[in-house]
């Protein structure tokens, strides 16, 4: 990044997303160095893996919600859709289906919820906030109804917990959950940068009417995008239930906010039309790095939440200011 800056001074001006990514990457490194000075264990191998593992669920949710944010929409149902999909998967498994089928079904349930969100917002004209709010309530309720308020256990499958917490590379501490996050990030990057899905997402986000007039079937693409987001929530549900070896029906509410925060810190504008996949991952890493560092320093949970709130303000304010300066 530095060499680019020296040789081509215009690159940041031409690619604001690159500039934002460079800034938050620098911020992430600064956070790491600061915590390393405060707590000697911070950059130990085990703790780095702990941070990455803690990022996995939120990172996957953030990758999902980022798609909807880039269309100038939002999905506040991802946290509870995540829970709902792993509850469904768990119930199918305990009812006797093979685990692989149950896992795939769980992800499909997530995608189906996303499809409904997309349908409500594109075809029925509900604002995405309202469509996904209702989906949040529906999935929160159904998770409790289906599970009869009890956790659904995957204990009958010996390797289910290893799915997220084992290491198929055979490196101790390099959890599969981290690899799942990386693979999803790469898939997202590919979809975003190399396929029409990415281009249309940004086009719809910057100007929906213009996108429609230029011949994009906006409704269909919105439904696709929300379904993708739902499928990501399904995968997050898989990772979470595997870490816990159970699907906990009461978890989920609140997780969407961390994911949205990660996407926003990562440079996704809520008014749509911009954002990067790399930024989302860095945003999620910033949140879990701060949380982990504060925990190592034995700061209480309430203060952690307050501090992350402040970071969110700084990130967005900084972004807004640099945009304003560019306009002037």
């Amino acid at each position, binding site marked *: 990044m530095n060499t680019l800056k020296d040789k081509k001074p215009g690159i940041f001006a031409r690619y604001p997303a690159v500039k934002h990514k460079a800034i938050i990457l620098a911020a992430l490194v600064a956070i790491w160095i600061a915590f390393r000075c405060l707590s000697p264990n911070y950059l130990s191998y085990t703790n780095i893996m*702990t941070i990455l593992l803690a990022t996995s669920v939120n990172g996957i949710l953030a990758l999902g919600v980022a798609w909807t944010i880039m269309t100038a929409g939002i999905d506040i149902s991802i946290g509870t859709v995540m829970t709902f999909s792993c509850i469904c998967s768990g119930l199918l498994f305990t009812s006797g289906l093979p685990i692989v089928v149950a896992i795939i079904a769980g992800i499909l349930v997530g995608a189906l919820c996303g499809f409904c969100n997309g349908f409500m917002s594109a075809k029925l004209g509900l604002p995405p906030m309202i469509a996904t709010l209702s989906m949040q309530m529906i999935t929160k309720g159904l998770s409790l109804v289906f599970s009869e308020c009890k956790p659904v256990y995957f204990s009958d499958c010996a390797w289910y917990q290893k799915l997220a917490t084992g290491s198929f590379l055979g490196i101790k501490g390099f959890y599969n959950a981290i690899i799942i996050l990386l693979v999803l990030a790469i898939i997202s990057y590919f979809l975003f940068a190399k396929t029409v899905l990415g281009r249309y997402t940004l086009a719809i986000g910057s100007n929906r009417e213009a996108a429609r007039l230029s011949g994009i079937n906006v409704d269909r693409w919105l439904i696709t995008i929300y379904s993708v987001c739902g499928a990501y929530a399904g995968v997050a549900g898989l990772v979470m239930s595997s870490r816990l070896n159970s699907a906990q029906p009461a978890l989920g509410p609140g997780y969407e906010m961390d994911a949205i925060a990660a996407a926003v810190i990562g440079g996704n504008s809520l008014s749509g039309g911009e954002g990067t996949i790399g930024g989302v991952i860095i945003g999620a890493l910033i949140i879990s790095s701060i949380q982990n560092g504060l925990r190592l320093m034995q700061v209480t949970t*309430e203060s952690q939440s307050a501090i992350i709130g402040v970071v969110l303000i700084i990130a967005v304010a900084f972004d807004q200011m640099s945009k304003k300066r560019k306009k002037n």
Partner: protein
Amino acid sequence: MKRIVALLLALMMVLALVACGAQEEVVEEVVTEAVTEDVPYVAMVSLGYSHQFWQAVKQGAEEAAAEYGVTITFEGPEQETMVDEQVDMLNTAIQNGPEAICMAAIDVASVATILEEQKAAGIPLVGFDAGLGEDLPAVNVASNNAEAGKLAAVNAAELLGGAGKVAVLGHTETVPDGVARVDGFVDEIKANYPDIEIVDIQYAEGDHMKSAEALKGMLLADPEIDLVYCTNEGACVGAYNGMKELGVVGEVMLVGFDSSKALKDGIRSGEIAGAITQNPVAMGYMTVEAAVKLMNGEDLGTNFIDSGFAWYNADNMDDPAIAPCLYD
């Protein structure tokens, strides 16, 4: 347009009429049932609903209701912090004309006036679990959480041989009975075990995943921790998963609270050293029993009924005295 509006209005009126008709019928039904069969109604408003603990309380309450021939309703807010929702539930239950009110108040002050009015009208009040405090004219059925925390401390000290480093992973810093579990433990250690050091107290909302992260943070900050005391099921099972992820099961001892399938499995395998269980089924049963007796004008001779608690580990969990206190 006008025609559509008119049609809609007409439709609404018809619906309203049908709804009124239906409601009247229902009311009539309830009244006749109450008059002919004379089934007293006991309203129970709980602190939570979806957690296994509350489901076990509900089960005990239903057993007592069947035995004493009363009908009960058992409601509770989704999260154990939703004071406003709990007040609404109480108000709604009162509309149905209960002959006794049983409640586990999140915040006694929020319902004191309402309950005092009911008491003045001759409706007996019974508190359970978190209870109704000492200022209201109510009988409380609960396990003594401070004493339970003490019992955990005594057993933890025995496991440590009287010396070592201990961390506490709590689930709430606001609900009094949760705080008492931490305070009882800490006070006992400080008073009687000078060689045991409490190095860190963290709170993680009883959320399984957040508890896993919190435990890992504590252990990475101070790898010499010998034992972690967790104050509810979510904290303990979350911590257990966190230990599995770090690969330190067996190196760090875990002392928990409450019961669930995952917690019992951990204790049976010896990977969790032991836990305190309350007796939620008995708590539910004794609550309804006390309510029925008060309704019949009996004097209980006390305003605190201890529903009990016990220490269990791999050795005694199948004892006839302990097994019924454990639940999934």
